[in-house]
């Protein structure tokens, strides 16, 4: 096994970011290739991580631990912040997903034509913080990466975005910041409640820790602390642990996003440039789901079990509400943004079910949605690059000008609406299956969730019919000469993703085998 593999995976894009920042602007052409190199490197390294990963255990693997900050606070004990990275069956699929999506995103960034230096530098910075977020096992470290994602995202939307980019980027920033604030509160609460028993023994004093692994064990909580599992401590009349769970949940729900905390998403997507939309939908939304699985659920299983029904309702509302909203859109990108809300609702439903099917399905759905939403946004980008226009009503019969584009869009639309054979189907199937299996959720609720697959068919096929079929026509006829079929670069971005979705749809067992053990282990605490 290679030492410090995960650190390397996380931090090497940072090197690229610095290199790009230091190079003079005259080396403009080199920037994108440096970014491609580092992203490719990341794909390779995550493949290496996959190679060394064992599916036989639920433990964290390749763990790296180093003391980072240790501060003695006298009678208050010792502050200990560690640098811990590790990978398990929930994070590995998401790591591989993000490395692929970031890679595709770089290629799609080739159309960015202003301030390339800042762009690629920020992009690689974003890559580092995403990886760090998925790998960190110390709450403080996680939070740091989580916050750090905001900075590049804010600029990527705010500087390279569309006409309303300032509004969108500030909205995105503030929304997420509010979420982080809630998470921060819980983090501090947890921190003062949890001690590291081993270190405490050594140091003969209370060593407080941010280690997520220690936080999942009830024995590590101080008996009278605010979040102690046994205590009946209440805040504002609510048991403190329940409150903490909800704060965490809302924090991650904003990221996910869950209705009614989702309105930043359509705006951010509409204004963001194509590659940023791809990264946003493909990876960043998954951090919400990942946060639930990594932090909220293992640390507060009691609250998670108690509120399973409420969470599932929120999930189903997202599915249905997002679907209806997608049906009402005329902007192609907005339609896809709302379809993301709908599809991420399945993730919440799967997680809330607290069954093996549901949780595995949720992880699967995250990966599947990562691939498919990347594809969808790339496809919008193809049209937008040519005409700077993406209103559904402005086009008819695109198939005559762009046959290959139409075929790939067709495949992607059908894959997204849950056609068997593609990954979307498996994700929806297993999250719904989890919903039905769960003894915490009523049958009617999950049944209501299936409305989502009808709506998905409606909005995707209606769009497909309106834009691609019929006699070729564009509202602005001067655009027609620009409607050329996919170029080589676009083919290289789109086709591998289509094949990935197909492969996952035919062999879902590959992905399930990664997450299965970890999920079973996680579920043990709910029994």
């Amino acid at each position, binding site marked *: 096994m290679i030492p410090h593999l995960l650190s390397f995976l996380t931090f090497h894009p940072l090197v690229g970011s610095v290199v790009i920042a230091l190079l003079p602007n005259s080396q403009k052409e080199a920037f994108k290739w440096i970014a491609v190199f580092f992203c490719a490197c990341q794909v390779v390294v995550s493949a290496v991580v996959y190679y060394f990963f064992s599916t036989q255990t639920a433990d964290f693997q390749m763990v790296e631990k180093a003391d980072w900050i240790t501060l003695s606070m006298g009678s208050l004990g010792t502050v200990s912040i560690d640098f811990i990275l590790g990978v398990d069956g929930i994070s590995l699929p998401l790591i591989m997903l993000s490395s692929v999506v970031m890679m595709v995103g770089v290629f799609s960034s080739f159309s960015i034509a202003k301030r390339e230096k800042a762009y690629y530098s920020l992009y690689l910075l974003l890559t580092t913080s995403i990886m760090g977020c998925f790998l960190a096992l110390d709450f403080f470290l996680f939070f740091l990466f989580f916050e750090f994602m905001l900075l590049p995202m804010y600029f990527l939307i705010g500087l390279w975005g569309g006409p309303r980019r300032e509004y969108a980027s500030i909205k995105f920033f503030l929304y997420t910041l509010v979420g982080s604030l809630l998470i921060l509160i819980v983090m501090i609460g947890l921190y003062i409640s949890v001690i590291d028993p081993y270190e405490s023994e050594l140091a003969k004093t209370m060593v407080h820790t941010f280690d997520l692994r220690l936080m999942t064990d009830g024995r590590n909580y101080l008996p009278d602390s605010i979040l102690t599992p046994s205590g009946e401590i209440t805040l504002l009349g609510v048991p403190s642990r329940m409150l903490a769970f909800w704060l965490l949940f809302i924090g991650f729900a904003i990221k996910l996003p869950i209705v009614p905390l989702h309105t930043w998403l359509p705006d951010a997507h509409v204004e963001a440039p194509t590659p940023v939309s791809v990264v946003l939908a493909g990876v960043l939304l998954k951090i919400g789901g990942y946060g639930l699985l990594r932090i909220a659920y293992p640390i507060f299983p009691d609250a998670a079990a108690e509120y399973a029904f409420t969470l599932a309702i929120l999930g189903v509302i997202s599915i249905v509400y997002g679907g*209806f909203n997608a049906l009402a859109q005329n902007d192609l990108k907005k339609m896809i943004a709302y379809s993301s809300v709908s599809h991420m609702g399945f993730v919440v439903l799967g997680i809330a079910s607290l069954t093996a099917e549901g949780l595995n399905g949720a992880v699967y759905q995250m990966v599947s949605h990562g691939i498919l939403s990347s594809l969808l946004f790339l496809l919008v980008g193809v049209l937008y690059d040519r005409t700077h226009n993406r209103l559904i009503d402005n086009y008819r019969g695109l198939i005559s000008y762009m046959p290959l584009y139409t075929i790939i869009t067709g495949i992607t639309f059908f894959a997204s609406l849950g056609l068997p054979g593609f990954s979307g*189907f498996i994700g929806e199937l297993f999250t719904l299956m989890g919903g039905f299996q769960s003894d915490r959720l009523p049958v009617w609720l999950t049944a209501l969730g299936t409305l989502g697959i009808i709506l998905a068919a409606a909005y995707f*096929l209606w769009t497909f019919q309106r834009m691609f079929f019929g006699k070729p026509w564009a509202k602005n006829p001067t655009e027609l000469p620009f409607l050329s079929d996919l170029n080589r670069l676009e083919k290289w971005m789109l086709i591998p993703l289509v094949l990935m979705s197909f492969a996952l749809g035919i062999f879902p067992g590959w992905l399930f085998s990664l997450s299965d053990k970890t999920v079973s282990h996680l579920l043990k605490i709910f029994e």
Partner: protein
Amino acid sequence: MPDICRKGFASTRMSLYLILLLVFPFLGFIGLFSFRKRANNWAGYIGIALTLMGLGGSLVMFNQALNQSQVYLVEWFSMNGKPIMLSFLVDNQTLMMLVVVHLVAVLVQLFSISYLHDEPARWRYFAFLQLFVFSMLGIVLAGSLLLMYVFWELVGLSSYLLIGFWYERPRAVWAAKKAFLLNRIGDAGFLIGILLVFWQFGTTELSVLTHQNGIISEDSSILFTVIGVCLFCGAIGKSAQFPLSDWLPDAMEGPTPVSALIHAATMVAAGIFLLGRIHPFLTPDALIVVAIIGTITMFLGAYKAIFQTDIKKLLAYSTVSQLGLMVMGMGVGAKEAALFHLLTHAFFKAGLFLCAGIIIHAVHTQDTRQMGGLRQKMPVTFWAYTICAAALAGLPFFSGFLSKDAILIGAFEWAKHTGGIAFVIPVVGLISAGLTAFYVIRQWKQVFFGENQGGYRHEQIVHDADSFMKVPVILLAILSFFIWFSFNPADAAHGWFFCIFPVEAAERGHGMVEILSVLVVAIGLLGGFYSTAMGPLPSLITLLQGIHDVIEKLFVSLFGKIRNGLKWLNEHADETDRHVFLIAPLQKIAYWTYRMDRRMIDVMVNGVGYVTVIGAHAIGRFDKLVVDGAVNALAWLAGFVGNRIRNLQNGRVQSYFVVMLLGVLLMILLFF
């Protein structure tokens, strides 16, 4: 029922056949699709060759595996220690469908070679047909509900692609979308049913469900009824049952051979096939629902067919009605009879559609009112059409008579058993049979007799098609005779079909029912034949038309507003559709949710933003005026005081002395 033999996948030669059956059409699809235009000239032949191989394979299987149910299992993956299996089930029902699908597919492809000979995208057409064959075979071979659902959706996809084959026609694409959507609604129910089955039994494997869990049929608790009805939803969608039947007539926008293969013989029969599979574990209550839905569909289909003047639409409504008959048969427990009707219907209805294709090809119109006098010009088509139509109408000596009467007998027996109001169902069945005879003969007369009504110009050469198109039609017509199914033209009970699908009920061949049905059909035929002949006289048809119009008008005036708002399903509809009940609310909800998003949630978010900004400004002002003011005031004060006090330190010894003196005085005063 023979014991089910469960096998691992790789163990037998049978599983090889199984794989090949699925792999050939799939490779055909991929191959034809990737060769694109270059495949145009030989795409049809490749398709036929592949399907012929499949036909050969299925005949071999028929020969070897008849009367033994076999399950082939292969592990797909496992989760939480539970394996998820892909299973294939081969029993008599499978074998029958295999042969039907392949046979009709071969004939339709043969027909298509000539029918689409100047279509520039033939490769796409034949590729999609292969995709269809692949997915249809998947449904037929699937041994678990889950796997069946997978192929079920793929069939929906291929149907979508083929209906929308002429994608430049807005109506065709619209119809394709509509078909997929209405199917999806049914499929969502189907999926719920499957997941409920999985939840209850931990498996969706048909052999396990029907065998070990005999409990299901005995235990008629609400849940099992719900499961049954949910599963039946799949059939409602695919087999165009009420209330999701509207897509089938619109699906006629696709090429006519497609209508013959998919929308008459095979895909729409998938719902019947599904019912045949799940029949053993449907509860009596669920069966009643099935029977009622089937009856409504049967009647409505036949009733609407009367008003059709489009040659294909009439056949489509007739298909809806016949599917209703089969579903009703399933509902009343005459499962074998329903499957039998599926078989006979596949041949004669495919034959009728192909005949219609030849006619449309020749006269370039679909309106039967403009046809006429085609009998002499197209004798082969005329005879083929006549034979198939006779089978559809249910005349003795034709296959349709045997199967339809088998269902009606079953229905009457069931009604006798249930008693009372249950007789409505077989009686409506009889009436629908009469209506069927009525519209069939009317169309037959309009198309083939009389004079040319202007649909084709006289100088235009209208003649029979070439043999690519004739051969399939002739074969299908021959298959519509009784002799292939039973040597006794009046009763199929001793034919081969009921030998391989044995029926338990001993009482067969009720003379009464058959006489009744012949009588009703005769009345229908007479009425139909003379209804056009009577010309301006107020006949039954005009009366019915009047009632129909009134209802439609009422409907439009009541729901017209909704219809106008319902752009996305109704944009190309040319008749009032019932689906406004189902779909109209969706559009409205979508509109309102988006308004809610913009007007409520976003307004709130922005409001919070504004309030924060305003608050920030207020605080800023406060900061500037009060906090800063205080600071400034302090600074000013310090300066002021400093200025004043500076005077004390003026460097003159006299004033220091005065101050010191004052200080000493002060101390004396204070301390003493």
